[in-house]
């Protein structure tokens, strides 16, 4: 383990181990960088760009940017947060995100990110796309209206579940999530309720039936505290940093 490598995040030193990205090192050090498609358990995807920082004068997605000694990174600036706000607004304008009827409301990462960044409107013309739902599966509902193309379910289904139930299809504005089989229907897959792909959806696309409001609105994850206060708890502290001896070392 090298303990001499640091980069600067908003003027403060953040240690990293070689091979870590700026995002991984920041989260490990207890520093939050807003993010959406990044998930600590999966290979960085770098597509949503919400984690964009300014590094060495250029903007880059911090989830894919390798940490380098001496790098100067700006994240918690109004300039970066304004860019993030615009990205979140575009996601809201592109899909059909009708929070008042969504059972994911309060547990939704996109919504929580919007709250935390102070997004009050979509900023662009809403596209109101036509995206039929897939309710064919007896225990799961797919509501494509809310898909933000983060590919977390695609990654989870392939890398963890070994089933590759989901895939992205099409290009550009026509890109969309599909069920990756001949019929294109979820009932014809071997997806299971406890699959990682089901648990990992950050928005309200993959939903378990009959439990939607078991936890009432107002008592949900992001009702209590903003996402910036909670994301650090999700971040795994790499074992390469060694065990925490703070208690033993304390006088």
């Amino acid at each position, binding site marked *: 383990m090298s303990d001499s490598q640091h980069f600067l995040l908003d003027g403060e030193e953040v240690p990293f181990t070689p091979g870590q990205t700026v995002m991984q090192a920041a989260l490990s050090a207890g520093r939050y960088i807003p993010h959406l498609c990044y998930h600590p358990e999966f290979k960085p995807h770098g597509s949503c760009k919400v984690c964009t920082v300014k590094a060495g004068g250029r903007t880059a997605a911090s989830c894919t940017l390798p940490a380098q000694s001496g790098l100067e990174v700006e994240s918690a600036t109004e300039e970066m947060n304004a860019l993030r706000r615009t990205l979140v607004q575009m996601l809201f304008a592109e899909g059909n*995100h009708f929070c008042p009827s969504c059972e994911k409301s309060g547990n939704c990462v996109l919504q929580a990110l919007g709250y*935390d960044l102070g997004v009050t409107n979509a900023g662009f013309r809403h596209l109101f796309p036509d995206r039929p739902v897939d309710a064919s599966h007896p225990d799961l509902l797919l509501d494509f209206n809310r898909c933000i193309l983060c590919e977390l379910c695609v990654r989870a289904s392939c890398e963890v579940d070994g089933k590759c139930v989901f895939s992205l299809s099409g290009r550009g504005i026509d890109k969309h999530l599909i069920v990756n089989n001949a019929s294109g229907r979820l009932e014809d897959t071997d997806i299971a309720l406890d699959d990682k792909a089901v648990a990992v959806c950050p928005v309200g696309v993959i939903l378990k039936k009959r439990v939607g409001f078991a936890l009432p609105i107002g008592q949900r994850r992001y009702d209590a505290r903003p996402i910036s206060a909670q994301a650090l708890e999700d971040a795994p502290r790499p074992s390469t940093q060694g065990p925490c001896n703070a208690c033993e070392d304390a006088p």
Partner: protein
Amino acid sequence: MTVPAEIKKLRVATTSLAGCFGCHMSFLDIDERLLELLHYIEFDRTPLTDIKHCGPCDIGLVEGGICNAENVHVLREFRKNCKMLVAIGACAVTGGLPAQRNHLDLADCLQEVYVTETSLGKGGIPNDPELPLPLDRVYPIQEVVKVDYFVPGCPPSADAIWKFLTDLLAGRTPRLGHGLISYD
């Protein structure tokens, strides 16, 4: 808030377009704070005064999206007369519940409700000339006029509306913050 002896009251207009008046109900939910607010504002056109047209105002609060021709006229009247126009609630901000028809063809909607579904339709699709014509789809108000501020929520809580208005009256940029900013 301590009330100065001499104060020029801000003139406020409110309206509900393609909305359910839920945001107005939430506004009334500021309860006794409404009396405090009345030290600082006076109402122009609003369902509370029953004034029918909006005169020159400082603040216009608009609930609801734009679903028909009359909504467009009222919204433009507000924009023309209000120095500051505020979208209040999910429908004004995003189109909301009425905009759930946006991926459907308008003619198909009318056909389904007034003709095909016999338990609802009695006498076919209404075409009285006094009825405002529905638009092809439901629009958030900022897609029709310029909007200065947005207070999301279905409805925004009374505390959110109070925070927004008191920030505005105190000359601060309104900031809702955690617990008050809400999309549902």
